[in-house]
């Protein structure tokens, strides 16, 4: 899209100068910059741009011709229709041809229907349509054909239905049905008639495509066709038309779907209708198919208000022993919305007395949290200690949701969350501390064959991931008691072969044979393979131990609350050995800091981390200090400005911006940092505050390393585009090739910012 700037603005002196410079490049520049200049003219919408762009349709470079066509379409230059039509016939380049078709479609050209019709059914060589000789494994016409069929539909060409039918019936042709159906659906009544005619011979797949194409049509026009499809003998076609009816809000078809013999159609009809009558819901809830029941429950849940007359809770209670868990879960979720008071008792009963499926328990927790049921905290405590990680996650997530609100319940939830982070909910197994462990496989050498000189215990312990376990004291080396103490699986038999040690061990096989006694060479082999396996870590089913897992989960979600009571717990967790726990805690602290929570309780721990040897934690602590913005914290941040790690320096810079204390000198220094990450961080940080200033310095930065950071600089300049434009125009009109090219690349971003066109800005930045 062109940038919508008032004509008087773009006709102003500075824009005229820019348009002249761009036009000059289109004529005299090299191929690379001529494309950019044409694109720039397309964004500029200057009165003098049109002639240059139309002339560019005859450029020797197909890329320029493509860009010119796109620019003329975006500027809506109707005078370009004839030259574009001529080009469509005469230009042999297929990429350019496709672009011309798209441009003609955008411009609503009406003089090209015959040409498009010819291209829709063949290469049109009898129409003197030029083509480059096919030179690869791809037939270029195929792309143009698709574009032509689409354009015929958009342009409403009179001959389109017949032409599209011919193209569809080409026995050697590509599959045009999806685009043809859409094009015909756009053509109104003639298109509908053609679609109806085509249906008689259409396959199931193509009938589904016809049904899908009706989604964007007026039901008044497509009603007859939809009814015909709704009575189709194939359920998947009926499903497709019900889905289309949902998109086009055709209640008549959806109501028909409620009585369909196929459950998936009934379910789609329930879902499509959304606001279904109590009678219809009652029928759906009694449906024999679980998917219909689930659809009805979701409709109830989606409505978000109590519903009388369904007796959903008693239905659920009756179904507990008879329906599958996913149905129970859906019914419970719906019951919590439709009959909140009665639902509480059922949920409490399920949580207290029934050993239900994890999915059901998760729904219960969610509902209990939403309903803020009495005893919720105890219920969540219990769930946090669950063996099922999904249940643990649900409980912790529920806690976090509760803590987001205000009031005593929310405060209590925050305290529970803090306790969870601190490790008070599940104790670590004895002797493990915070060390992650898993099932352990032990390898015991044959007695008397221990390597000479090896006075220690030669037992090698590998966990399920193939990681070598830390060696224990000699007294821990044999017997199963110690293994039991440390939570190891004492039933795990030794493997039959070292190969099994390399691969994931198969317990069934291991039990089938005798113990294998390994020799010294095997042990050294195992040491080496253990190292290999350690590097791979390929066990996709590995799960962290529960006591550590809940702490990590809680630390991860705590950042979404707004409770200062969590700050201290998170700060402490951030200093712990477990990297994942620390990362989660620091991430949450940063998110809390973004919400203007008082972070002063974390200050001391963050200062310690920021001055520590762990660069990773240092980098993460700095933003928290920046958010605290006290003199002490800012000083700690400034102390890291010269840190050895570029990542830390970059974080330091961003934190100073957050604290509002970054000086121009510090910014200039950062922009000149030897490491590009720091320079980039400086530019990005300044984007948040806007008003770039120092345009010349920034442009020089953009030019460094052949424009590595040009996009970021452009975005920064876009925060003060009026300051940047004169310098950019100078560069574009200048003699230095690299500068000119760079400015051309940055121009669309700056122009987009001037027009306040966010879409254009994003698009330009992305491109």
């Amino acid at each position, binding site marked *: 899209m062109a940038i919508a700037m008032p004509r008087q603005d773009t006709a102003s002196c500075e824009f005229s100068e820019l348009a002249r410079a761009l036009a000059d490049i289109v004529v005299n520049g*090299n*191929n*690379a*910059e001529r494309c950019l200049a044409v694109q720039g003219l397309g964004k500029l919408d200057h009165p003098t741009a049109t002639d240059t762009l139309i002339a560019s349709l005859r450029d020797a*470079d*197909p*890329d320029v011709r493509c860009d010119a066509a796109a620019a003329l379409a975006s500027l809506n230059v109707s005078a370009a229709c004839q030259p574009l039509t001529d080009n469509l016939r005469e*230009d*042999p*380049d297929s990429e350019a041809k496709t*672009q011309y078709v798209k441009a003609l479609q955008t411009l609503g050209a009406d003089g090209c229907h015959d040409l498009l019709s010819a291209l829709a059914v063949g290469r049109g060589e009898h129409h003197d349509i030029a*083509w*480059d*000789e*096919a*030179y690869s*494994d*791809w*037939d*270029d016409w195929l792309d143009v054909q698709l574009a032509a069929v689409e354009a015929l539909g958009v342009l409403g060409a009179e001959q389109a239905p017949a032409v599209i039918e011919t193209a569809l019936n080409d*026995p*050697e*042709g*590509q*599959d045009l*049905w*999806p685009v043809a159906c859409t094009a015909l659906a756009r053509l109104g009544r003639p298109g509908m008639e053609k679609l109806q005619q085509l249906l008689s011979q259409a396959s199931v*797949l193509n009938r*589904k*495509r016809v049904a899908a194409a009706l989604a964007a049509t007026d039901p008044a026009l497509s009603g007859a066709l939809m009814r015909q499809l709704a009575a189709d003998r194939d359920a998947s076609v009926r499903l497709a038309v019900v889905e289309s009816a949902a998109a086009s809000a055709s209640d008549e078809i959806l109501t028909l779907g409620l009585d369909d013999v196929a459950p998936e159609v009934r379910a789609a009809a329930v879902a499509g209708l959304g606001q279904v009558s109590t009678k219809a819901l009652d029928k759906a809830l009694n449906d024999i198919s679980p998917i219909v029941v689930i659809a009805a429950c979701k409709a109830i849940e989606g409505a978000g208000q109590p519903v009388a007359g369904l007796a959903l809770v008693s239905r659920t209670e009756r179904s507990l022993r008879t329906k599958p868990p996913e149905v129970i879960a859906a019914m419970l979720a719906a019951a919590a919305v439709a009959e909140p008071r009665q639902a509480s008792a059922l949920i409490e009963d399920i949580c207290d007395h029934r050993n239900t499926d994890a999915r059901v328990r998760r729904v219960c927790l969610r509902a209990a949290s939403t309903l803020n049921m009495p005893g919720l905290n105890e219920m969540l405590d219990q769930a946090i200690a669950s063996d099922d*990680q*999904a249940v643990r*996650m649900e409980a912790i*997530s529920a806690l976090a949701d509760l803590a987001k609100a205000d009031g005593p319940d929310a405060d209590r939830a925050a305290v529970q969350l803090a306790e969870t982070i601190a490790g008070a909910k599940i104790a670590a197994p004895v002797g493990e501390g915070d060390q992650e462990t898993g099932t352990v496989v032990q390898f015991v050498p044959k007695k008397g064959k221990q390597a000479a000189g090896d006075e220690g215990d030669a037992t090698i312990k590998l966990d399920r991931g193939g990681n070598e376990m830390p060696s224990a004291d000699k007294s821990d080396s044999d017997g199963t008691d110690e293994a039991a103490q440390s939570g190891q699986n004492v039933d795990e038999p030794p493997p039959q*072969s070292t*190969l099994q040690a390399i*691969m*994931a061990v*198969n317990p*069934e*096989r291991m039990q089938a044979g005798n113990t294998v006694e390994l020799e010294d*060479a*095997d042990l050294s082999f195992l040491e080496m393979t253990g190292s*290999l396996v350690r590097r*791979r*870590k*390929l066990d*996709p089913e590995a799960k962290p131990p529960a006591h550590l*897992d809940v702490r990590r*989960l809680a630390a*991860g*979600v705590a950042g979404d609350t707004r409770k200062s009571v969590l700050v201290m717990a998170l700060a402490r967790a951030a200093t712990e050995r477990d990297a994942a726990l620390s990362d989660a805690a620091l*991430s949450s602290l940063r998110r809390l800091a973004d919400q203007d929570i008082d972070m002063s309780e974390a200050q001391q721990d963050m200062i310690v981390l920021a001055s520590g040897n762990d660069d990773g934690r240092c980098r993460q602590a700095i933003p928290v200090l920046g958010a605290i913005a006290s003199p002490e914290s800012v000083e700690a941040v400034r102390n890291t400005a010269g840190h050895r790690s570029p990542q830390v320096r970059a974080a330091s810079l961003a934190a100073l911006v957050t604290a509002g204390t970054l000086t121009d000198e510090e910014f200039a220094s950062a922009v000149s940092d030897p490491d590009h990450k720091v320079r980039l961080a400086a530019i990005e940080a300044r984007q948040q505050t806007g008003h770039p200033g120092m345009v010349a310095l920034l442009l020089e930065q953009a030019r460094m*390393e*052949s*424009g*590595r950071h040009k996009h970021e600089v452009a975005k920064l300049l876009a925060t003060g585009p009026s300051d940047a434009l004169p310098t950019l125009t100078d560069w574009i009109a200048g003699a230095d090739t690299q500068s000119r090219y760079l400015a051309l690349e940055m121009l669309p971003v700056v122009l987009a910012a001037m027009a306040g066109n966010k879409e254009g800005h*994003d698009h330009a930045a*992305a*491109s």
Partner: protein
Amino acid sequence: MTTPYYIPETNIPLPPVDADVISTACDYCIVACGYKVYRWPVRGGKVGGPKADQNAFGVDFPVEILGPWVAPNQYNVVLHENEPHHVIIIPDKDAKHVNINGNSSIRGGAIAQKVYNPQTPTRDRLKSPMIRMFGVLMPVPWDFALEIAAEVGKHVIEKHGANAYCVKTFSYGYMENTYAITKYALRHISTANFTFHDTPSDVTSTPGFRDAGFDNFGPAYEDWRDAETLMICGTDPYESKTILFTDWIMPAIQGGQKTIFLSPRNTGGIAYAVKNGGMWIDLLPGTDLPVVLAIARVIVENGWQDDEWIRNWVNNKSESSSGFGQGTRNTPWQWRTTWGKFQTGGFDDWKKWLLEQDYAVPEKAAEIAQIDVAKIYTAAEWLAKPREDGSRPKASFMIEKGFYWSNNTGNTNAISALGITCGAGGRPGQMIGRAGGHQRGGLRGGKYPRNKSPEKLPGRRRRAMDTDRYLMSGHTRLAHVIGNTWIQSMCGSQSLSAKFEELTAQNPHQIRSFDKQEIIETLKKRADSGGMVVFDQDIYLVDPIGARFADIIFPAAGWGEDTFTRANGERRIRLYPKFYDPPGEAKPDWWIIAQLSKKMGFEGFDWNNSNDVLEEGARFSRGSRKDFFMVKVAAQKEGKTLHQKLGEFGTDGIQGPVMMLDDGSLEGTKRLHDTTRKLPDDGAAGANVFNKKLTHFNSQTGKCNIQKAPWSLFSDYWEWLSPKGDELWTTSGRINERWQSGYDDRRRPYIVQRWPENWVELHPDDAAARGIENGDYVMLYSDRIPVQVDTIIGIEGDDFTFTKLMENGHIKLEKAAITAVAIVTPALKKGVMYMDFLHTSQPANALAGRVVDWISGNYNYKMGVGNVKKIGESPYKHDFRSMSFARRDIA
């Protein structure tokens, strides 16, 4: 010595007489030998007996030598329609093509071990979609994973543009899959950030062949057999395409064929050829061009060129400049030729240019390549010197990756010119082509959107995007990786890995929720914050792309788990039927792509089965080397599906392009560019396509273009890279026992035992100078790995030369280090080290320079340098339990 950890099975059941027999082909190398699967249910305990009337082979056991005996590695148990079944998978003893009479390689011979069986090391196949939540990959339902992927994909395309969505995919994993994937990526997403497993950009692998007019896979296997002189560059078919060597080339050598190998490393195939009168030109990496041109120079100086062929089939001056259709000329071929660096005014003009090049003087070329100059003269004689009766030797030229990945444009231009000079390219036994690596399963569902690529060469049209550099520059926000290791298979792999780590694992936006919407929002934030989301679609969890970086894992189904279609190295198209159930919820790639596409709102993915996909894709094969459209036409006429019709060809298959004769029968194409072939005078009838390449060459006139191959376009890089100080060249390649990244081999006890780690071959002098012995652990390291950075547009004419890239700061020197077990062998050229090319935990590509051939955009994978030092002794040094250090260059 026996081993305590690999105890092979000794007994397996024979198939009963009523066992199902399914024809298929091997899944591994380009040769694609024909195989048969014997399948029968476990239930009931029925097995075949040793008498001929008691088993499905119809032979008495024990059988004669080379009879249809079955090895334990050829047996497995699978689930078929949810019921356990025995399967025996053996080469087809009745094969009339490819592996005639049922020979097999060590890879294919054990292909039964590939299939999923939870009792074997294949148990870790991916079985359900997974999402990385709280740092752990957790199994989730398909809909859950696909809906998240679709939402994130749509967001990335909408917010950051189509090019932010990268698709890095295999190019060979069956036509049904590649059609679906390319339709998704190129037609619907329309991203220029797309490429295949073995290249950073979607460009031709052999630019010189394409410009000359040669198809990569024009020859038939019998052409390699029928050549009197066969020049093989950058490969030993015995190591990597065993049956092509043992069944086609070895018999020819026994019959007197003179075989010339260009390679820095001696191997079994080379040793055999040399022992039987052949020759090994033991050149240094990257020096093929001067050697090839020096051979051509000797030929033209002696007047041994094939004048008649050149007169009839080589473009003269006016033909070289003749046009392409109407209007503006701007094809990939043309911009290279009009640029003036390569185009010639015909043979005489090329000869004049050749004689002016000092590096093409045999003595100078021999000095650059460090070879005996006599070999250049001998090669010229063998290839082109007419016999006393005036007849000429029939010469053919086979190249592969060791050659075209060590000066991509230059080498392929040079060998094309040498072949043309010798009259090769379009006659039986006189052909030029690739030997091939993997099978040919590509089928395009869309055109690469070249005009969306940000890369433009000076004064020329845009070139396909370098996906590695685009990612390194931070523009890729979503990487969808399908069936490849990406990181280890690219040059400078360790720096690429570090970037992946930064963009994924180190990004603050990590999934910390099980809620679908929250997961979607987190991944969107990741992409918006400059990070990257990774989808990985594969059969095993691959480290690191899947195990460490992927957010969403899609489990794929492979060989034998759905019905697929693919061609081999002589365009022989065969059906690979489904014969067992994929593990868990794994699905074929076409299905995964179709579901994802539908959730993204794309039309045209409503396929019910793989046959639907191929029938749709058949249209897009028209005119290609694998054109099988007429098979579909025949199938429809006979009321069959395309798969049913293809299945009728059994292990014979049919060679593309396929034509329908007047009587409705189908005829394949033995070789492309067959100047001896007569097509009907009245042209193509019905839907047949008479593509120019059937009887002519892929050029503007149908004749060959003979092109210059300037050393100067490459020599600055070669000279900069050449070993300095104590450095040695490092290069890499395949070994017989391992296929690709070893994804199956790592799960085969014998192969793990034989090759537990990567290894490096060193010349004894190089090893002795560093105190290295067989079995030592060594570290290969370098602090000058040239890594090309930034996506840039060329403005000045030399912007993409290595020298200019260096000057402009687009080359960064990175560090890399890998370990390996040393193998000291005189089979290797002094000054060169050689490793397995794709060992995922010790990737040789870490040391290969990540600088693309600036004309084509391909990597020169086979060229790296590094230091090597001993870091200790491996367990294998004094133990025969596992690795062997025996020489492999034995005949």
